[in-house]
């Protein structure tokens, strides 16, 4: 289970439904874009800003013309909808992602604990 290497991104993800999209990694999903084109492909990455990376994509432009794209990166800003595939258990996916984040945060190994979240320094 991969989580972001960035403290800030983990925090953002944990507090938004982007965490669900991140759990779609490996699944084939359809993304509706703002300009009404759509992209269907295998999710390879979703970051905290909802930028979505897809592979083996069928891209249908707003005129309805389809083409194949090997890889596609679409910015979060330009996404209107992400269709959650039927086979995905939404609750379980969110829980799994949260667990992964908490594993990284709280259970760093012996000398390898991530130096995350130092307390706010006293003012």
């Amino acid at each position: 289970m991969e989580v972001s290497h960035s403290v800030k991104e983990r925090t953002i993800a944990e507090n938004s439904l982007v965490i669900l999209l991140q759990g779609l990694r490996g699944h084939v999903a359809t993304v509706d874009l703002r300009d009404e084109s759509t992209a269907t492909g295998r999710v390879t990455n979703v970051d905290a800003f909802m930028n979505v990376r897809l592979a083996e994509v069928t891209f249908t432009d707003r005129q309805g013309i389809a083409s194949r794209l090997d890889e596609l990166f679409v910015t979060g800003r330009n996404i209107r909808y992400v269709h959650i595939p039927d086979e995905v258990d939404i609750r379980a996916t969110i829980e799994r992602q949260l667990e992964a984040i908490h594993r990284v945060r709280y259970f760093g190994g012996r000398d390898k604990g991530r130096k995350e979240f130092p307390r706010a320094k006293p003012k």
Partner: protein
Amino acid sequence: GVAMSFLKRFPPPAEGVRHQQPDTEAVLAGRSLGAGTLYIAESRLSWLENSGVGFSLDYPTISLHAVSRDLNAYPWEHLYVMVNAKFEEEETKEAPMTEGEEEEDSDDDVEPIVEFRFVPSDKSALEAMFTAMCECQALHPDPDDEDSDNDYEGEEYDVEAHELEQGDIPTFYTYEEGLSHLTAEGQATLERLEGMLAQSVSSQYNMAGVRTENSIREFEDGMEVDIAPVVAGQFEDAEVDH
């Protein structure tokens, strides 16, 4: 037709260039701009024709990019970049651009879309070009994000401190960060304890509880304290740096 006046002369970017691809044709809305070098830099995406003129695109204007190897859709493998911007002079009334850009009615919601294709002569470079663009795009998150709950700016958001206010979630310090939070008194105590660990044997020989300097002296009078030499590695799992 396409107004070429947006092409300007400028020096190639020098900093933060994640990928540079020479011998790359730039195609704007179906019309070739010639051969040049594509610079995928952290600040912006630039293309410079071999003659020295070119253009730059700011990442926030790029809605998506992709690797296209579908020769039915376009005869050459290329990096496809879709941009939310106009590429025409303001004075001239252009007919709607071919292939992709449409002048929708005065509907404010629909922004102009312009399609760029960057066709490298070296097709095997497309992966690297795509990845470099992903990395650079990620450096420019949307400032207009509606998620106003954005106190993640600057200082790392202290989730731990926040959560402690809400409940008792166990937290851990790594050795280094724990150290930095000790007061002078805490430091002294730590040093004393470390010293004791270095001298003492495993717990069966120790009195329960922490012994101060004074209490050690006390016991030394009456009791035979059997202090065995420290076995190397005995305290390996203690997070103590000697």
